[in-house]
């Protein structure tokens, strides 16, 4: 069937900010959908509040709205743009939920909008747990015994029937948010409370736990002619009980016989037909009882998902792109397979390699969080690796994670052992517990279990991990022991780290076996000497009989020729990389998402690839994150899906011989490789490694600042506790402290007094003589400013100056900011601009640079200089309408800013606010106070003509819409009280009634305001938390000083966050909120597309 001609303009919904459970995979799917629809000649109108996405690039859609993803906003868009159809399946749960809301509000009917991809009925059937269960029973499939409840009373009745352990699962949430396993009545009641709050419709499913069953996922596609294909069967290494997003997953399924697989496939076909997903992709999860093959359906997502992104990257079959084409009427047999070119999309990919995905966690940033993995997702990213065997893929995936583990490193100092029985009972117990309880370390505990002589059966009994996987891990651990034994035997004590580059012939075979098993040189060295430093990278020439080669991902197991160079390394005899002799540049990506390094950097890498393509230069992308746009084989000329370690990257460089390597777009991951790669003679493009070092090395940086006669906060570094006290006193409290070896604000803290400093040293337990403590003057009440600039060696252009809403001291990634600055005067702005230009010149920046300034009483301090792409590059680009990363890439290739037409800071009349989004509710974080350590997972942008509206939009987009009336609860530290008076007056004028804790209330009533006093927690009940929990409060303003008052007030903030009550922990943010309320009361909501905003920006670069 040809494409539909009855629709012309399609409305596409993105997935909003990056949160746990919804990450860049939906930028990948949304971008593919946009491109596919545009390619077919449709107009695309797009809504996504996340500016860091490729899909919101203004040239991808006809109208791009970076606006709150609410019913009101969509109605305003419908009113302006009158789309004919809505494609709801590309933007994750967010898009699906918003679509349901639109249907419920009658807006689809009112504006005559057709849903394509999935009907309202099928969404309901798949998402409503009760309807889904009924549907499954109709087609003779089993689901876990369950029931859905809307109140605690119903829940308690239900649990009598289901029994423990039971899974508590709220309806319509993403990433299984709010889900848990309850083992007893007490836990159950607690989880029910949370789940009822988490579910947007107040409905919760309680179901029988299938703990220990094997878990599988099938990615299914269907077209209008009812052709159905399975793209990929995925098997979870972690059995049921761990959310699939938190599980190690493997493709294809490893332990299913054909009989079992076909039964599952048949079930999947029946399900997609029964649910009635007309076109596009769905993801269906199954549980299988390992004892008798009994099959149970867990759930179905009637949309593309994180797993479909994984399946796309795992097979080379672009699910989202095909799903978009199916949605507009094509059938699978009409769509060509891009990779083979001769076959059609109507087939089932076959995989001649093994794919392993391992999730990435960042628990270390959240104190006191439960690290046990359960049915709600806790990971923030993932890495994927391909190898010819499971063992090889597993080891590659481990080093792709960048957790400084290059293999199955022992957590208990047992490396090189096997079947060791002389183990202290405490260690044995720790290992057994680590195997029994699912955490991010379980895989390593299993390896240790094998090292101390636990059998495969023991480990299966403790963990329910399929014995096949345990055997595979055992093979690796056994080899490690053999490696140590034979190397030591042959080389004795003469072993030196350079040995791998010059092995005696009798050990070459052993080394070859190691490489076949996927070992990195780093790990092999580590096993021998305890040190992993220095890599030999014995490069095997393409002519060699066996060695490390590159193979292509081709969807068809080599049955047809692959035309797409989507490559992975493996041990083999024939290399398929076939490098070209074109001029080429290699871009190193950012690896797995984590807090502090996410989609923004992938955005930059993708732009770099686009720029190179425009310049006619071949691009080679290297990355290992399956969620991203950068790992779409369409984005670059050649894609290497590989770990970003020195050895793995060098192997590609040796094979490809690129003219240059780009390290400044992918965040810390590639930046860390700059110096080691340069040391191997690899040409680094743009700003040189030495300049990067000058900006990162504290001593050299201070010299730089002094040489330029600029200011930086007073600082020192302490190698002993008493030194730390002396430095702190000399600088004067409060001070900012951090250990010297960490990145991204890890363990960074503001210290208010000597006691707190002692406590900090105690808690972090750092060895000061090894890692000195860095102490900085904490500039109180300073305004923090972020600047992004581009330099070409001759000219530096400041692209954007952003003023943080929160005062300095809060990590820039967590702080809201305003572009252009909201309160800075012209003189300060000019000063900042001048300093930026001088720093860029002095550092010889070629490409992007980001500087963080603090402005205190008119003085401008430099906090940090990063000669690389920053997190704010996409935000600035979307605001000013200039693709900064693309410009930077061109500059790095020798173009001049003047020639590119980007010669001065653009001016414009709109205002953009960036706001951060936090994972507090998903992780159950106990204190949500912002600080110098970054904890946000994503960001949104609010854009409007006034600061007030832009801020209000940013809050709505972040999921905390500012209320227009109700009770405002104020509890502020003494220093903030005078300013709070002003704030309270305005709130009262806006119609809010005021409540305050004792001190705050007293101060406000002294100054003539009507305030009700509420109890602090220690002052008896009902207290402040009770009021918040009872939803009597519309907004909370809570600022605190020293750490003891921080601890006291933590429950207040927690109650607000978990109760969904807007809260502000800084006075500046509260003031911005008041501006927002004033704006919203003054003028109605207006939406405008980025294309419209950009038309009014001056000084745009040439296209």
């Amino acid at each position: 069937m040809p494409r539909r001609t009855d629709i012309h303009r399609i409305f596409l919904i993105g997935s909003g900010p990056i949160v746990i459970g919804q990450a860049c995979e939906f930028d990948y799917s949304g971008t593919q959908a946009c491109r596919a629809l545009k390619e077919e000649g449709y107009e695309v109108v797009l809504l996504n509040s996340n500016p860091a996405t490729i899909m919101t690039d203004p040239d991808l859609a006809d109208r791009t709205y970076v606006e709150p993803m609410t019913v009101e906003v969509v109605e305003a868009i419908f009113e302006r743009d009158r789309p004919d159809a809505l494609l709801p399946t590309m933007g994750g749960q967010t898009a699906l939920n918003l679509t349901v809301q639109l249907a419920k509000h009658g807006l689809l009917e009112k504006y005559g909008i057709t849903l394509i991809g999935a009907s309202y009925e099928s969404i309901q059937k798949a998402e409503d747990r009760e309807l889904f269960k009924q549907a499954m029973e109709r087609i003779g499939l089993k689901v876990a015994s369950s029931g859905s409840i809307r109140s605690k009373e119903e829940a308690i009745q239900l649990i009598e029937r289901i029994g423990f352990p039971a899974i508590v699962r709220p309806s319509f949430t993403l990433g299984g948010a709010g889900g848990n396993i309850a083992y007893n009545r007490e836990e159950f009641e607690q989880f029910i409370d949370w789940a009822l709050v988490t579910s947007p419709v107040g409905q919760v499913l309680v179901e029988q736990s299938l703990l220990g069953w094997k878990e599988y996922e099938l990615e299914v596609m269907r077209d209008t002619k009812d052709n159905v294909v399975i793209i990929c069967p995925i098997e979870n290494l972690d059995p049921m009980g761990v959310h699939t997003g938190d599980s190690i997953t493997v493709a294809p399924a490893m332990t299913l016989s054909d009989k079992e697989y076909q039964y599952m496939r048949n079930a999947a076909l029946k399900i997609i037909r029964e649910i009635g997903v007309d076109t596009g992709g769905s993801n269906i999860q199954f549980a299988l009882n390992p004892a008798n093959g009994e099959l149970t359906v867990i759930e179905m997502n009637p949309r593309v998902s994180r797993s479909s992104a994984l399946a796309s990257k795992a097979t080379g079959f672009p699910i989202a792109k095909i799903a978009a084409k199916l949605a507009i009427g094509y059938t699978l047999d009409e769509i060509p397979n891009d990779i083979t070119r001769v076959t059609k999309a109507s087939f089932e990919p076959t995989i001649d390699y093994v794919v392993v995905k391992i999730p990435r966690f960042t628990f270390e940033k959240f104190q006191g969080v439960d690290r046990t993995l359960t049915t709600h997702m806790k990971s923030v990213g993932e890495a994927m690796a391909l190898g010819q065997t499971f063992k090889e893929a597993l080891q590659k995936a481990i080093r792709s994670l960048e957790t400084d583990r290059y293999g199955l490193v022992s957590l208990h100092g047992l490396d090189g052992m096997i079947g060791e029985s002389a183990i202290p009972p405490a260690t044995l117990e720790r290992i057994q517990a680590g195997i029994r309880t699912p955490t991010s370390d379980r895989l390593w505990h299993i390896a240790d279990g094998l090292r101390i002589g636990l059998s495969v059966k023991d480990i299966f009994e403790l963990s329910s991990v399929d014995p096949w996987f345990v055997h595979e891990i055992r093979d690796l651990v056994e080899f490690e022991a053999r490696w140590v034994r034979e190397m030591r035997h042959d080389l004795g004590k003469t072993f030196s780290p350079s040995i791998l580059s010059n092995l005696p012939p009798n050990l070459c075979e052993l080394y070859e076996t190691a490489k076949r098993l996927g070992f990195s040189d780093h790990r092999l060295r580590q096993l021998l000497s305890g040190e992993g430093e220095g890599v030999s990278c014995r490069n095997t020439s393409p002519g060699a009989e066996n060695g490390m080669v590159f193979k292509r991902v081709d969807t068809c197991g080599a049955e047809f020729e692959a035309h797409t160079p989507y490559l992975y390394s493996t041990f083999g005899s024939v290399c398929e990389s076939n490098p070209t002799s074109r001029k080429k540049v290699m871009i190193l990506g950012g690896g797995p998402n984590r807090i502090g390094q996410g989609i923004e950097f992938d955005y930059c890498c993708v732009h770099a690839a686009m720029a190179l393509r425009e310049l006619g230069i071949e691009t080679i992308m290297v990355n290992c994150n399956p969620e991203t746009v950068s790992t779409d084989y369409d984005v670059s000329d050649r894609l290497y899906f590989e770990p970003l370690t020195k050895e793995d990257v060098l192997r590609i460089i040796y094979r490809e011989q690129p003219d240059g390597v780009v390290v400044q777009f992918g965040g810390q991951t590639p930046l860390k490789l700059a110096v080691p790669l340069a040391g191997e003679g690899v040409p680094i493009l743009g700003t040189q490694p030495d300049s990067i070092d000058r900006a990162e090395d504290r001593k050299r940086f201070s010299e730089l600042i002094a040489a330029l006669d600029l200011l930086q906060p007073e600082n020192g570094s302490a190698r002993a506790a008493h030194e730390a006290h002396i430095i702190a006193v000399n600088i004067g409290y409060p001070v900012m402290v951090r250990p010297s070896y960490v990145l991204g604000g890890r363990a960074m803290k503001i210290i208010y007094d000597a006691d707190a400093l002692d406590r900090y040293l105690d808690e972090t337990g750092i060895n000061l003589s090894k890692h000195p403590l860095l102490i900085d003057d904490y500039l109180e009440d300073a305004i923090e400013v972020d600047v992004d600039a581009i330099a070409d060696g001759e000219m530096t252009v400041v692209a954007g100056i952003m003023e943080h809403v929160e005062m300095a001291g809060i990590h820039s990634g967590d702080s809201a900011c305003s572009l252009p600055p909201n309160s800075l005067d012209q003189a300060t702005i000019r000063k900042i601009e001048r300093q930026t230009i001088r720093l860029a010149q002095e550092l010889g920046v070629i490409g992007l640079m980001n500087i963080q300034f603090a402005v205190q009483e008119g003085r401008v301090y430099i906090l940090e200089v990063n000669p690389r792409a920053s997190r704010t590059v996409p935000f600035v680009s979307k605001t000013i309408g200039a693709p900064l990363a693309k410009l930077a890439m061109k500059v790095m290739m020798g173009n001049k800013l003047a020639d590119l037409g980007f010669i001065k800071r653009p001016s414009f009349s709109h205002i953009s606010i960036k706001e951060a989004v936090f994972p507090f509710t998903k992780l159950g974080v106990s204190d949500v106070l912002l600080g110098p350590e970054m904890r946000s997972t994503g960001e949104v942008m609010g854009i409007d003509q006034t600061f007030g509206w832009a801020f209000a939009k940013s809050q709505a987009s972040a999921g905390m819409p500012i209320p227009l009336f109700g009770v405002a609860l104020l509890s502020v530290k003494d220093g903030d009280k005078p300013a709070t008076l002003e704030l309270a007056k305005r709130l009262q004028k806006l119609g809010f009634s005021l409540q305050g804790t004792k001190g705050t209330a007293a101060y406000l009533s002294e100054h003539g305001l009507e305030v009700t006093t509420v109890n602090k927690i220690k002052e008896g009940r009902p207290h402040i938390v009770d009021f918040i929990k009872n939803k009597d409060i519309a907004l909370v303003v809570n600022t605190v000083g020293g750490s003891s008052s921080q601890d006291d007030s933590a429950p207040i903030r927690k109650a607000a966050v978990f109760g969904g009550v807007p809260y502000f922990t800084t006075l500046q943010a509260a003031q911005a909120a008041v501006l927002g309320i004033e704006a919203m009361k003054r003028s109605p909501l207006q939406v405008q597309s980025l294309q419209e905003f950009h038309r009014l920006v001056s000084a745009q670069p040439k296209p």
Partner: protein
Amino acid sequence: MKRALLALADGTVFSGEALGLEGETTGEVVFNTAMTGYQEILTDPSYKGQIVLMTATQIGNYGVATQDAESRKIWAEGFIVREASRQKSNWRASQTLSDYLQEHHIVGIQNLDTRALTAHIRGQGSQMGVISHLDLDPASLTQKAKASPPIVGRDLVKEVTCETPYDWEEGTLPLLDSVLPPNSSANGQSTFRVVVIDFGVKQNILRSLIDHGCQVHVVPASTTAETIRRLQPDGLVFSNGPGDPEGVPYAVKTVQSLIGWKPILGICLGHQILGLAHGLPTHKLKFGHHGGNHPVMDLRTRKIEITSQNHNFAVDLPHQKLYEVGMDLQRMTTKMGEVEVTHRSLNDGCCEGFRGLEHPVLSVQYHPEASPGPHDSRYIFAQFTTMMREGLHV
């Protein structure tokens, strides 16, 4: 690990590790792209004369289960895999793959670059090969590969067909009830008497017939038309089997004389023999179709089914290439009357099925009985029973 070599007739040699029984084996090397079902593949008599190379890299993980065999033994001449699991992990598994290979005297090779080998066969075509654990001299092994007789024109059917007729009574095994779909149209009663001419039949064809309410009687390939007529069946099934259809002229003759007498279902080799019986020539494909992911269009419904395939030969069509005729229904006059091409491969346009317009003949190149592979095409058995019931062709 013991070394092993694989030499192809064109002189290409791959080195790997020994798998299965220690020894040496010769056969035509073909690759199969199925990700599951190695046991079904090994025991499929159609692989007589061939060494099977699996493109999926981890083979043997779920061991072998007695119920999953497609015949009483392994027919493949040898087995090539990237990595054979030493363990078995499945509730139904009774044996590890390597024990199974040993027991059935199968010589194999593993830990070689199977993707490179597959690409080589794709480029150069299927050819004879020798796996050896004993002779590790590449030149001598290549010589043996060159000297071994190719499959074309050989009668491999006589090596795999049953020796004497027998009745088959087992449907889909009760043990697998929870694992197989309730696809049966029968209510436990046998309505049709079917004679299966065994060219190397897969047991799942027999089970599927039972599931569809048939009484099944299997006869050797050499059974004469006269004998078959005396059995007075309601329908005939010409089964799958190994090798070149032109190698079994006696079967072609038998089939020819039965066309029009009773409804006929041809599968795989049976389909090719039916083709020859109609006067449609067959040809050898470059590297065949072997796998579980082959898209086939039913030209009448325009729907795609994902099929299980295993064939090196195909029935010629006047316009073989997909792009020359598109996917239109194509009618042809043959010496046995008019036929209609009903199925074509979406990958290369190859004829995957035809039916008689004057006689009740239903013929498919792929495997509607699956095992291994998707069950999308089981409707063929229902069409066959309809044809028997209504005395018409469907």
